[in-house]
């Protein structure tokens, strides 16, 4: 995934679409936007930084996981097998990006009324006491691929945050394919990884907010017919 910080307007659409898609409990934002002011007066600017799991090639969370609940798929997606997770939270300690969340037994969004059926499906008993993370909506990718859709092109096979980004600041595709849009952006548009000094080699790249070259428009994944 490539996220263009020049295009991001900080609308939190990714955060909300992620919550809707993945039915996460209160306090868990697998995709989130952090907003900060940088610089000193009078040269101050506001930066929106959309964050999610970086899907690192060298994920520290996977290395520290004592149960091998955190695994890496062949396509590079890092995910948690919730059956294996014992909730030790070592991965949350190890992740440099704050991309992991522990599901505490603190109820849902409606207090004393208990969980709605939707909430029950998302974070009922099966997810209590485990650690959740973004997995690029692997359920959408897998279901979409099974129906012949292409991730990054067709919304059926693309992560919810990408399809929902109204500023089209997110690009999704196969970084192993040198001709894919994301590969081209990474190669040409001054893309950078967050804190590469941690040795994590993320698969989520960012295009800087302060740059002169505007990236090419993404394929319109909203209107393309299957």
């Amino acid at each position, binding site marked *: 995934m490539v996220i263009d910080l020049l295009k991001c307007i900080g609308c939190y659409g990714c955060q909300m679409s992620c919550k809707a898609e993945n039915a996460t409990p209160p306090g868990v934002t697998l995709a989130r936007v952090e907003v900060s002011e940088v610089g000193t007066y009078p040269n101050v600017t506001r930066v929106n930084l959309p964050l999610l799991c970086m899907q690192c090639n060298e994920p520290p969370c996977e290395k*520290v996981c*004592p149960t091998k609940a955190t695994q890496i798929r062949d396509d590079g997606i890092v995910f948690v097998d919730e059956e294996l997770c*014992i909730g*030790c939270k070592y991965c949350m*300690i190890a992740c440099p990006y*704050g991309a992991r969340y522990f599901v505490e037994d603190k109820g849902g969004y409606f207090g004393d009324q208990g969980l709605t059926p939707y909430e029950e499906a998302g974070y009922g008993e099966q997810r209590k*006491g485990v*650690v959740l993370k973004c997995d690029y909506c692997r359920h959408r990718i897998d279901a979409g691929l099974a129906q012949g859709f292409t991730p990054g092109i067709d919304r059926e096979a693309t992560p919810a945050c990408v399809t929902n980004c109204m500023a089209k600041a997110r690009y999704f595709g196969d970084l192993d394919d040198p001709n894919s849009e994301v590969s081209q952006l990474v190669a040409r548009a001054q893309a950078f990884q967050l804190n590469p000094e941690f040795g994590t080699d993320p698969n989520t790249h960012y295009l800087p*907010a302060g740059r002169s070259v505007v990236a090419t428009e993404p394929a319109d994944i909203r209107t393309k017919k299957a």
Partner: protein
Amino acid sequence: MEIVPQGVWRWKIAAYLFLAGTGAGAVIVGILGDFMGYVIPAKIAIAFGVPAVALSTLFLIADLGRPEKFFRAVLHPGTSWISRGFFIVSALIVSGGFTVILWVWPFGSVLDADQGLRTALEAIALVFAVATCIYTGILIGVVVSRPFWNNPLLPILFLISAVSTGIGGVFFITPVVCSVLGIASPKTAEFVGHLESVDMILVIAEAIAIYLYLTLVFDRAPEAARLLLTGKLSGLFWGGFLGAGLLVPAVIEFFSSVGHAEVLPSLAPLVAGVFLLVGGFLMRLLILAAGIRSPLMVRTPFKVRPGF
């Protein structure tokens, strides 16, 4: 921007690190004491240390989201220090446990008769006790994105503190056991007296280690260092850990070793022991809490809620 302390691993993990360190430290003290001929106090120290280590693991398990699946933590020793620690701590509990069972209770006389077996068991337990103390520092020290911990001095600091708090535990438990069982002896008092001198050196070493530690991490983790020295945690750090946990026991030990008590139970080491234990727990708690993440960088420093 207000800096929030690290909130993922809290007091239960601090209690685990503290009890595992204290128990392992007491086992080290007991075994070295036995090697030097102090049999009775060695038995007391080991019989205190091994259950303390066993108790520590309960805190670790209680912190899990799925405590009933704790045994799965052994599955990834290739890279995970929780898995490796599981083996190290288990080995200490097993080897130390056999020492206690065959030497103290319920089969107290077996190892009194078999000197060779006793030395062998003690040597194994000693290795894993030292490994346990060091491992608790490595566990959090390997995390590169939390620069306050990612420091080679941390395991050393934890080892010094573990032996010191182990001595604190021995100070506390020895007079109690001796007076309850009526086995106070000049030899035991002599051992405790030696420990007071040793612990004074350890406390000074720990103070130096803390100073060097903070000097080392200050450039790499300024927010974390400030959190301890002047921020939210500064009261506990200066008053709790440095004052009550290091200075007070050192002063008590100094005056106690000057006017040496001839026969136990003497109150001075017992009081010093309590302060040492409190200080050891606070140290683990503070170091855990100060382990905040590095800010994320977007060309210019972009600080994403450090500590979250």
